[in-house]
């Protein structure tokens, strides 16, 4: 079997432009993790159910294990590494997880952080119920979600604190 056909794909990931040459079947999750070596994005199921692989594609939370790298050619992607502010300050959502003990093993965490980041953009002041809804599609086996819900609410609070003059 000859080497399979490769395609040029251009991705802007966390603000940096990358050109990669990948076969058509290369998952975006694998491309991010193994071609770009941004291993903060995790893979928990590879069938779109756990949300660990969630990244922001042009600002929208998407499951990178359900996308082919070639299908997002030209997109701007934000991974967990890109949530941190340029000066190294943790983003409000990252800070909230630290404040509220929102993680244990940390494997699911990147997917929650990206999902919540996108969610709070749409709804910056969620109620407890809305916070639960917001994370309703992500699996975590460690935390029982109690402190993740708290982290969502706390992140919204930090956003407001930081925005205040």
């Amino acid at each position, binding site marked *: 079997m000859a080497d399979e056909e490769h395609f040029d794909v251009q991705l802007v990931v966390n603000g940096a432009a990358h050109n990669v040459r990948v076969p058509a079947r290369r998952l975006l999750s694998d491309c991010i*993790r193994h071609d770009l070596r941004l291993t903060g994005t995790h893979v*928990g199921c590879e069938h779109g159910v756990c949300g660990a692989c969630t990244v922001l594609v042009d600002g929208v939370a998407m499951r990178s294990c359900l996308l082919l790298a070639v299908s997002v050619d030209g997109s701007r992607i934000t991974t967990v590494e890109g949530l941190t502010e340029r000066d190294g300050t*943790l983003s409000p959502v990252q800070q909230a997880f630290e404040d509220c003990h929102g993680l244990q093993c940390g494997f699911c965490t990147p997917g929650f952080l990206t999902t919540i980041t996108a969610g709070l953009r749409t709804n910056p002041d969620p109620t407890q119920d809305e916070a639960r809804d917001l994370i309703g599609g992500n699996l975590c*086996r460690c935390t029982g979600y109690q402190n993740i819900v708290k982290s969502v609410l706390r992140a919204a609070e930090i956003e407001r604190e930081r925005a205040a003059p």
Partner: protein
Amino acid sequence: MTTKMFGEPIARVEDDRLVRGHGAYLDDLGHDALAAAFVRSPHAHAEVLDIDVTGALEVEGLLAIYTYEDLPDRLAEPLPLLIPHPSLTHGRTQYALARDVVNHVGEPIVMVVARDRYLAEDAAERIIVSYRPLPAVVGIDAARAAEHLVHPDVPGNVAANMMQRVGDVDAALRNAPHVLELDLSIERSASTPMEGRGVLARWDPESHRLRLWTSTQTSTGVRAAVAAKLGLALVDVDVITPDVGGGFGVKIMHPWPEEVLVPWSAQLLGQPVKFVEDRREHFISSAHERAQQHHVRVGFDDEGQLLGLDVRFWHDHGAYIPYGLIVPIITSTQLVGPYKPGAYRVEFDSLYTNTVIVTPYRGAGRPQGVFVMERTMDAIAAELGLDRTVVRERNFIRPDEMPYDHGLVFQDGRPLIYDSGDYPTSLEKLKKLVGWDDFAAVRDAARAEGRRVGIGLACYVEGTGVGPYEGGHVVVEPSGKVKVATGLTSQGQGHQTVFAQIVADELGVPMADIEVVTGDTRRFGYAVGTFASRAAVMSGSAIHLAARAAREKALKVAADALEADPDDLEIVDGIVRVVGVPGAEISLGTVAVLSNPLRYAFDDAAKAATQFAVGDTGKPPVPEDEEPGIEGRDYFSPMQSTFASGMHAVVVETDPDTAEIKILRYCVVHDCGLLINPRIVEGQIHGGVAQGVGGALYERMAYDEAGQLQNASFMDFLMPYVSEVPERIEIDHLETPSPLNPLGIKGAGEAGVIPGAAAFAAAIEDAEGFPITAMPISPSELFELRRLHSKGLST
């Protein structure tokens, strides 16, 4: 004065790295490694007739294909039976690659190594294995019936029959005013960490050294197993546990076939090789737990006091039994919970089935035991028309009866003796927290509105911190930073934080100056592993002792330098000072420099320790019986386990039409001795409770009769999302110190999951008015039960 860190709910030191996406889990390492994939059996039971690899050979990027035939010497022998036991008369373990028979769907038969995982899977797909299917034994009923055998040389599919007894149970039952019989069962579930198994191996031929990273709960165990299988000296094998994305028991099992095959092929190919399990592989080729059937006979008096308890049960351990009888032994012994059972007899068969192996999953046999005992308590209460808490209260071991010897042998081979605990107070707290005494009114009011609500409770005792031992190493660097190592591994429990808290208190150094490493054999070579809620108790105590040794050494050296008495010194914020003498002080870093007499100065600090600068020329530079450096190493090896306990109460509402089960309240009273970090303990409880909810209402391994696992994906295996867990888990703590370790602590890791199934069954029973005897329970099963009971057809 530095604030005491022990007991403080401080934020975790692990988190900063992890929330930035800078964690390093197994598959984040070895980008240059070759990838392994496996051809696994699609049959639950079959003879392997032929393996044709021709089609795979043309796959670009293929490096190697291995079958059983290729395995040398020790690798060709069955994998180890890790925990032998005299009752385990028919122990069978698997080959790293199947030899001529496969015994469960998912058993590995061929290993493929290629340039990347996509190509390895391409090649694996093109390998044709011919099978002659054999009848599959699936489930406890089929195993007991033994119409077919899993292993032809194991009669009745029974690997072990074991019995323990205290007193004359037959006489006790004969003479008891009341006797009840119950049949109870629990289905399979599994640890299901978000990260599956994975292993990466790098062989360095020049230094003749193997370096192995594996997502494990025991790096020293893997090291010993791999060294033995590959014929290497222990000192030539380093096993490093990277960040681990959850374990919950499944990763204590070792060596997995992949853990020996990957380093072997890395050695052969002279290139790093990596295997990362995918989700389906995790379901069908790692491990499950929980499935048991129990038959109980219980005798009691008019007050509900137990007189005799006779438990016969059957434990499904899957196709092989590498982890021995640990799970059913725990069930047998922890079943008695906080109670005095009167005469007690427990007997089990551990049975082979053509399904995935069974090894401990968080709780490890206790959820089943607690389910059985608590269902029995509820049945007694119902029989006598007594309040369920009253029956429990009457059977509790009282605090003044501690230590309490049950006369049984626990999972560690030691007598089952409870060290401490206060069950009556726990129950009082729980009743108050959940509002037990007022619940009848709540239930009646709901009924009047056509709603069904019910309350249930369940109590447990959990042996934690089992031996044999763990060790700790603490060293103060010349910079004043403190480096701590212990051999057991971490999977998200926050060990770096709590161990640093212990060291901070002992050594008087700020948290920020302490770094803790776990599960790296290069840093600490003697260890057992992380299981049985033992890390805090065992390594915490060892590290505490090691830090104390380092402190004593530091005070001695500082006393010399300050010309003071060691007893007059204190260490605050990394500075050793003479109490009450301002200015008489020296930094811990300088003490570390002075403790190591030098010939060569490499920086200003070191100058202070060189031969023309320090030392009494009348004495050897390193005093006799001393060592250079401010360092402590110590081990903790207690006589026996320490027993934590707790009680959960749950309030549910069941839908009168759809039989959906909704959680209204979930309350926990938890006693794990003194708390090192309450925030971390609560996190452990939260996670355990969620797994308990899963085990009670959602999770099961849906094997069909042919042994195919029908729900081997997150799409079909219903692991709780946030929508399935209670909105609030209400927690109250009781802190009964353990007398068995210097910190007074007990384990906390597993507790949250243990009473879940029992408490839910009780609450649903209370809401519905008929007995619940099998868990998990789905709305359709509850619906069906309602139908049977309304027709009076119940069993």
